[in-house]
């Protein structure tokens, strides 16, 4: 039986964002929230392989109580169980503290029901750091394969998987020992339409909420602000560039406008440097 754990994060819909001017932190209240799109595809892949191999998909998330809706959404998409790790003491976590909390929660899940594979999104669209997946893998001392676009094979008996990952030089085909953590590109799986029973189940689903009181043990030095080595020093707005020169081709004519632009580029030595002359 295949046991996959998928880590999901709720993110603000990026078109609608506010910053607390005091703390420099993201204001989550009142902003439409969605499941991080890469996590949704990671979850879809896990569910797809559960259907092929038989088994179970467990979802885990760290965040405020409002993240329960995201876990319900995961159940709607085919997750069997979901756990929310939520406590005020976790607030203000950077990627290092986040990877600690998720790793502790996953260790606990693994002790009760051994995990074969961990599915993460390649990054979250609110921070774009792509650090938490590799961080969790290091803490669990398991291999990580990032930017996975396709899972070719999961061999539970041989405890290995063959996956494809996207890099600058092309597609790497990697054989990795299980348990392993993969971070997923959107191509890994299409988001399925929820079957009616999953939809109904999700509406009533109440995930277990884990706090610093248990059942998972957390070292208070490694969580929240205290466990986060990075802090925001200051926030600012980017400097405005000097406005450029704008000419109107409709007034001066296309030919003259283009000539004007190219003459200016030539005066700055652009063509000479492009066409093999001295820069």
């Amino acid at each position, binding site marked *: 039986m295949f046991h996959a754990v998928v880590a999901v994060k709720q993110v603000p819909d990026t078109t609608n964002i506010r910053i607390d001017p005091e703390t420099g932190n993201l204001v989550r209240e009142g902003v439409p929230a969605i499941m991080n799109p890469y996590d949704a595809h990671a979850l879809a892949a896990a569910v797809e392989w559960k259907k092929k191999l038989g088994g179970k998909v467990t979802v885990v998330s760290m965040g405020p109580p409002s993240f329960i809706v995201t876990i319900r959404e995961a159940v709607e998409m085919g997750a069997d169980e979901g756990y929310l790790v939520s406590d005020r003491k976790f607030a203000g976590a950077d990627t*290092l503290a986040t990877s600690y909390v998720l790793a502790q929660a996953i260790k606990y899940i693994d002790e009760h029901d051994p995990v074969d594979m961990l599915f993460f999104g390649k990054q979250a669209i609110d921070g774009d750091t792509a650090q938490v997946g*590799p961080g969790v893998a290091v803490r669990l001392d398991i291999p990580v394969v990032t930017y996975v676009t396709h899972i070719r094979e999961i061999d539970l008996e041989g405890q290995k998987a063959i996956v494809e990952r996207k890099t600058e030089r092309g597609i790497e085909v990697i054989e990795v020992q299980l348990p392993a953590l993969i971070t997923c590109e959107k191509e890994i799986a299409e988001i399925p339409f929820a079957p009616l029973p999953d939809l109904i189940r999700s509406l009533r689903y109440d995930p277990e909420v884990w706090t610093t009181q248990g059942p998972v043990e957390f070292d208070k030095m490694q969580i929240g602000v205290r466990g*986060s080595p*990075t802090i925001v020093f200051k926030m*600012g707005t980017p400097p405005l560039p000097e406005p*450029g020169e704008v000419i109107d*081709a409709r007034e001066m004519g296309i030919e003259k*406008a283009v000539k004007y632009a190219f003459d200016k580029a030539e005066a700055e030595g652009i063509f000479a440097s492009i*066409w093999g002359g001295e820069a």
Partner: protein
Amino acid sequence: MSTRRFWVYIEQEEGVVHPVSWELLGVARKLAEQVRDEAEANGDEVVVEGVLVGCTVRHIAEEAFKYGADRVYMADSPICAVYRNTAYHKVIAQIAKQYEPEVFLIGATTLGRDLAGAIATSLRTGLTADCTQLEMGEVKGAKRKLLLATRPAFGGNILGTIICRKRTPQMASVRPRVFPLPTPDPERTGEIVEVPVELDESEIPMRILEVISAGGENINLEYADVIVAGGRGLGGPEGFKLLEELANELGGVVGASRPCVDAGWISYAHQVGQTGKTVRPKLYIAAGISGALQHKVGMQDSDFIIAINTDPKAPIFDVADVGIVGDLYKVIPEMIEQIKARKAQMEAQQKEAAA
């Protein structure tokens, strides 16, 4: 007296260096200069060092000196012939534990992002991703200057400066082309410190079975000299054919803004901007791109920018050297004609000069 070490990860694959490594050596030299006075006052030494992992990569270490490294820690072993996260992060974390760098910079490439998070977690330290400004600065209550790592947040509307106050190394990743390539000094040399690799193949839980080459997809947008980029104003995928014609004439490549990629008009490999590639070509022609912040942050450091848009208020004009208000379907064909003429003229002059 202590040694303040500014580290750069020298990224290579198959013996070929990713130029972001040299860009970061340039940054590390500047950071080292910024603490020079403070270090001298305390009797400390300041050095810029590279970390290089691979197999038969000595020639790369030699090159690193020319770009600004004083010393290179080289882990050279057949087991590191190809990049694998487990092997590389373990080797590098071990070297970092031994030498305790103050700052550690890594290119935010696919490989670098895969690696940086793993190293930072191994070392239980802070890592700031995708920085666009780096500086050693005074922080109240800190005995020494700290790395002020600035990155765009929330679509580029805000710049956040992050510090890592109590732990080292202070790590940052930087995307290719955010900083300029330093001019190499052929006279510069340095010291290679060979680091033993105490790993056995059996300890590495992954194997690369094959690499399917990217082929035509690999357009090397980041390092192109000329980019002709299109936006929503093209009105459809066919418009890119016209841009390609101009790009070919100039010896450049085609770029795109995010909406075109999202609409499926062109592949992601062409995307310029915050979620695509950062570029700094000699010439950037933006056609029908309105100039969302997310796009501008990815191309505003180009040497010369020409923007074409029908809307005189398009924000792209703020970063353009010359903005042309007009229909791109009239302007681009005219550009193709004029470029042909300029090239012919230049060739004629060269022939004359040769004769």
